[in-house]
């Protein structure tokens, strides 16, 4: 598996550049992956989404249904796509250190 260096730490990622161990995430990871996703700045709304994803994953071991993510953060899907151009399931999960969703997504 490849590694990337974030603030002097070696972070393991999969073939798609997603972290392999969500527990190894630290704040600088979000800034690092944001660059790769073409996101210039992380706003409060970005963090609202990232934090909700992280909390949900910690409790349930999986990313939430997208409709639930929108409802709980109060951010409509269209705006989530503006925040994370590759979408909530891919871009947002990557920034939060969640694994890339598999199957029919």
């Amino acid at each position, binding site marked *: *598996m490849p590694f990337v260096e974030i603030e002097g730490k070696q972070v393991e990622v*999969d*073939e*798609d550049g997603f972290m392999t161990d969500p527990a190894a995430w630290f704040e600088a990871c979000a800034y690092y992956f944001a660059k790769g996703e073409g996101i210039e700045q992380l706003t409060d709304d970005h963090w609202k989404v990232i934090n909700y994803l992280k909390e949900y994953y910690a*409790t*349930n*071991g*999986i*990313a*939430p*249904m*997208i*409709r*639930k993510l929108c409802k709980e953060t109060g951010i409509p899907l269209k705006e989530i796509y503006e925040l994370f151009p*590759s979408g909530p*399931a*891919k871009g947002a999960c990557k920034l939060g250190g969640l*694994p*890339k*969703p*598999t*199957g*029919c*997504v």
Partner: protein
Amino acid sequence: MSTETAKGLRQPKRANEKLFRTLGIEPVPDEKKVEEAIRHLDDFRNKLRSFVVTMENCVKCGLCADNCHTYLGTKDPNNIPAGRADLIRKAYKRYFTPQGKLFGPLVGAEELTLETLEKWYSYFYQCSECRRCSHTCPFGLDTAEITMVGRQILFWLGIGPQLHTATAGAILKTGNHMGLTKAGIIDTLEFLAEEIEEDRNGLKVEFPTDKPDSDILYIPSSADFMLNPNTLKGAGMFFKWVGANWTMSSRITEAGNFGYLMDQTRIQREMVTRLYEECTTLGIKKIVWGECGHGWRAAKMYVASYSDLPGVAKIPMTHIHDEVAALIESGQLDLDPTRNSQKITLHDPCNYVRACGLCDQMRVIMRAVTSDFVEMTPNRERNFCCGGGSGVLFDDPAMYEYRILASNKKAEQVRETEAEVLCAPCSICKAQLYPMVKEHKLPVEVVGLIDLVGHALVFPEE
């Protein structure tokens, strides 16, 4: 070697060796790959009649070319179904026919090389196994079977897309493609029950999970838990309306079977084994399948012959569309089609119409639950694939571009109907069409068929 030979070929991002080892596969080193592939081809020709028939009988009439959405979109001769099968056929001739052994290239025979295996990886993952070419072939040759052989051999060599291989890993871990946990499943279903209560004037719908002594086991697509909430809701409302004693299972929350798409041995069998173990544990009397095209084919056509467990054939298995259509035809459902009044068209999932005989049932439902239904052309068993079939839902740039090209034909069909809603009752079709309607600037909303049933069902307590 592979990076060098892969140059210029459109290929999905491949899984690494570590991932393959978790699936019980020790990747074959490059210097052994060709030899191993020939050995597997020899095995297939000895046990698989459909493979030999297709290898021996193609006359290159060319009829399949314009019937393949992949060729129409990419104009790459290796994407002509006959040309794609030739990537194996040339080696078949070289090693297994007397004329090929003697005269080589003069009779279309060719040595198998690592370069050719790279082409297999490129083109067998551009074929969506939709079988429109088989439907139009004058000899009835099933070219998708060749894609399946190619993908299976590649898998055994340790070559496969990250997407399919990681999904196979999730199957072994959780019994579903998304890697859903029981906690996640229950939380999502509670959320959907609350949504129905809010949207439908206090209507209470239960979504039982792992409930013992249930009559019906409903098998949803795991993607419904992330992307397709209305399909799950529609199923829940339907089972409530008919008063079924039903449940879902957290051990087999998956209507699809990616094993069928890359490893029709160990991975495909895992799902079948889990299914029947759950039927025994929960006392199931009937299995009802959710909206998933390839998965319904894998279930309807292969489950009985794949299971080692006794007595499994006694449990009847139907698709939820069969159930709904039968109750509509016998006048037992109270439906209000004006609730779905927008102009709507139906995309026929390839595996339903060309592999499972699930075709008229969808029309029975459409006519009962919508008020402005228009067919696209061609339709039914002549319909074109969405371009995502067999899970070619890759998002790396070259493959994403391919998905857009492969859905050109579908976009053209939908545009001609001038519909506002596109019903695509299969999880792969939905995952392909959600982004593709945007890429093709089609002003349509993509929905499932059971979504519309749930919306149209009239409950006395509402």
